[in-house]
């Protein structure tokens, strides 16, 4: 059957996904297949790029047809999107959120700011290379990347998951000292943000 329009796009996108056969055994294959086809993305926008996420997940681009959908809390999520520039203050929250997520977990970094600082390359308050502080599975460059690019980034991630190559959480566990050292270098000894709401009640509000 010949496809055109929407169906053609879907076929092109998924073409890469179905072709892979490099698995060790059928259990691995099945596990990876389940994982790649049900990606729960944490609904957490960390920068300007978060504006591209709603169209990606809603009807216009409809990421759910590829098995990608939102998750409400870090404990339920598989993927965290670091969308755009990442200031020190945000980095603290991202680290805490990432460490709360359960394995397997992946990081999708969006926009040129996460790659090399982008237009904030000489800003005193944003990091330049995300992979120094957290393990990144997939970079999607652009400023900002369109939903199409985000979808392609997801497909590439799904492909790596299907092949069993995406294992950044293992990397984080194995090289924790390296990441922690880098985090402490810019955030100080206390990396985690404080939890309490005292700042609002007793600190004079905002």
């Amino acid at each position, binding site marked *: 059957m010949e496809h055109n329009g929407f169906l053609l796009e879907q076929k092109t996108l998924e073409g890469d996904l179905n072709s892979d056969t490099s698995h060790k055994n059928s259990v691995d294959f099945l596990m990876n297949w389940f994982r790649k086809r049900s990606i729960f993305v944490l609904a957490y926008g960390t920068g300007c790029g978060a504006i591209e996420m709603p169209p990606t997940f809603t009807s216009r681009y409809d990421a759910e047809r590829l098995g990608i959908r939102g998750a409400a809390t870090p404990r339920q999520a598989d993927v965290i999107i670091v969308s755009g520039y990442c200031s*020190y*203050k945000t980095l603290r929250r991202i680290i805490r959120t990432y460490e709360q997520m359960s394995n397997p977990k992946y990081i999708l970094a969006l926009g040129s700011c996460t790659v090399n*600082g982008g237009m904030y390359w*000489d*800003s005193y*308050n944003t990091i330049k*290379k995300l992979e120094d502080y957290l393990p990144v599975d997939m970079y999607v460059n652009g400023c900002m990347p369109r939903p199409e690019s985000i979808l392609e980034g997801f497909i590439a991630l799904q492909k790596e998951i299907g092949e069993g190559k995406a294992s950044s959480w293992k990397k984080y566990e194995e090289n924790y000292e390296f990441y922690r050292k880098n985090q402490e270098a810019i*955030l100080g000894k206390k990396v985690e943000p404080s939890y309490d709401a005292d700042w609002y009640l007793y600190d004079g509000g905002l």
Partner: protein
Amino acid sequence: MFNEIKQRFATDDVEVKRNDLYKVRIKYSRLFELMHMLRDEYDYKTLNAITCTDWIEEGHFALTYMLTTEDRKYTFMIQTMINREDAQAKTLSHEYKQAQIMERDLHEMYGIDFPGNENLKELSLESWVHTPPLRREFDTLEFVTNHLIFREGREDNVDTKAETKRLRAEKKAQKSKDEEVKDGK
């Protein structure tokens, strides 16, 4: 109003910036007197903003207080200079509630102290221990180079300007060559 200000505060530095925007420069010691006068006699009841400019060469900060009338029609800018070293200004947070957060911001970004303000904790930065970032002696590029790791360029990284120039020259040469061939025919 202008004459009264000129006489009472011995200043000639009154400017009409726009038909609804006035500006005056006065000494810091007379600042609050002028603000009270404008508030009580001329209805400038709202404090819109406190802004700061860093004049590093002259060695002072210029603080600008913007006051607006109750009917929101007129704005008065009062500019005053304070010393740049151990910069200090009296707080306005007891008279204008909104001044509290403005002063907190100035304290964070310029290191100006406002004795009497109850809360001068960090506002948008977190555990910042270096020079306040908006002071002009703070060298952003130097700070970034010392504290953060840049990504190295790609191996095939080329200087874009030189490369564009080279490509253009190549294209031009090719074009003239083509034209010569054409003319030859």
